[in-house]
């Protein structure tokens, strides 16, 4: 675990906070889809465990995270300000494969985090992609700021927004992505479990070419506690932190 200073803090809408953190090792090693474990620097034991967050971006000696305030850990983190220090461990886990010819990136809510990193990497490598983002509430559209300079971004919102598509990201995809378009593509998705479960129906026969970044309740984040088990296709369990968090859809039971 190392200490990282918060050097930028930005809020997106009501529930999302973005930190830019100074930590050279993580910044230089992180790859899209990997995550870090983070604890607020208070010396207290409630909350106890560090929390896992996907890496949003990384360059030189800084990397960024973006998190949704959902419980006490993220609430406490959201109180921290520029100059405060957090404990971080990472980069951890197995990231996305980067060998696509064409990518379709599907993000539900905070699921956009690892996909934004992936999109930047695709840009660097000249890999073409489309980015689909679905959010629940109008206010969450603040997240679009993260995608401003990306080409081919489409979004949807479950609350009605004038001039916007109303529905989930998969509704949106269903409306505007024809089979011909996705058949040659590799699909990368991150979002709520319900959304990921539906992918198999929306993209029949593509399970081998869909990579999903999963969440699980974690203890350690590096493979010792065996707490982050999820069912493996064919029996037994994967461990999200060490076998994932990115899996082919064909490998897991959601």
């Amino acid at each position, binding site marked *: *675990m190392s200490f990282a200073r918060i050097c930028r803090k930005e809020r997106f809408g009501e529930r999302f906070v973005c930190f830019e953190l100074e930590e050279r090792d993580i910044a230089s090693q992180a790859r899209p889809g990997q995550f870090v474990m983070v*604890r607020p620097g208070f010396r207290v*034991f*409630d*909350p*106890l*465990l*560090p929390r896992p967050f996907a890496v949003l971006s990384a360059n030189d000696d800084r990397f960024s995270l973006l998190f949704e305030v959902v419980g006490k850990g993220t609430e406490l983190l959201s109180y921290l300000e520029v100059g405060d220090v957090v*404990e971080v*461990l990472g980069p951890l886990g197995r990231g996305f494969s980067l060998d696509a010819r064409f990518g379709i990136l599907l993000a539900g809510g905070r699921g956009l985090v690892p996909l934004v990193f992936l999109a930047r990497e695709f840009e660097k490598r000249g890999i073409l992609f489309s980015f689909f983002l679905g959010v629940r509430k109008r206010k969450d559209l603040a997240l679009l700021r993260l995608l401003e300079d990306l080409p081919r971004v489409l979004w949807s919102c479950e609350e009605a927004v004038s001039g916007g598509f109303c529905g989930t990201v998969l509704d949106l995809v269903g409306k505007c992505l024809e089979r011909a378009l996705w058949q040659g593509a590799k699909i990368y998705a991150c979002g709520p479990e319900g959304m990921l479960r539906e992918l198999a129906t929306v993209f029949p026969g593509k399970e081998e070419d869909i990579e999903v970044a999963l969440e*699980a*309740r*974690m*203890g*350690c984040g*590096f*493979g*010792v*506690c*065996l*707490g*982050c*088990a*999820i*069912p493996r296709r064919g*029996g*037994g*369990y994967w461990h999200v932190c*060490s076998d994932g968090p990115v899996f082919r859809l064909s490998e897991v039971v959601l």
Partner: protein
Amino acid sequence: MNLSVTLGRMTLKNPVVLASGTCGYGREIAPYLDLNTLGAITVKGLSLFPWEGNPPPRLFEVRAGLLNSIGLENKGVERFLQEDLPFLEALDTRVFVNIWGKTVEEYVAVARKLDAIERIDALELNVSCPNVEKGGASFLLDPEALRELVGRVREATGKFLIVKLGPKLQDWEVTVRILEEEGAEALSVTNSFPAMVVDVERMDFVFAMKSAGLSGPAIKPLALKMVYDLVGMTELPIIGMGGIMTAEDALEFLLVGARAVGVGTANLVAPSSAVDILEGIKAYLLRKDMENIEDLIGRVR
């Protein structure tokens, strides 16, 4: 400064031990701390055959504590010997192997297999896992079953034999006498505590097994009391554990008479915890102008 401690015929270079189930088979945690600086590492509980463990969710954080229902998932003794022993062979620290079985025979079979492996310094018999019906806490509720188990394992191995207790002890004096008589050489105290959590929104238990094991800071004052009580009941050396997060926590256990300390949940919170704890113990000895860690052990009774 002399940090080495003896547990009966076993010597550790210092009293800090990684507790079972929180450091994998060693390799997984190795990138984050220098294992050779520690007194010992206790690998994840092994059974005769690979074991899948419990369905998710397996973890739930409570206030200052962690509930786990891993259910003793492990790769089985054979794969452990193939995949992990070579890494452990190269270590310069004690290697303890935690074992469990669904029957006495399984315990014995695992003990036999490990008895043959020179590199392994001790077997730790888990008779107190709160998360599986057999192969666990039931032995603590039935003195005669416990006697048979420990006696049979004792016959099967010449290794240093540790028995890992939990709070579900029926009658402590009786249990301790049995363990002494049957040849246990040290006690690990304590395993996690039987505990429960309900998801009020879903109106259901969080865990498929309903109950789970509580570990971490929440149990420290309870574990310390258990260790204190047991130190008063037996000459068997005790490895104290339960919620040790800092050097001060570890020192509390040593002061009441534990001869070594186990670091468990703290490894999940920060994988270098055990090393930080050891450094803190050293700093304390320096500050208190004590040359020998033995001078500390059992000083507060």
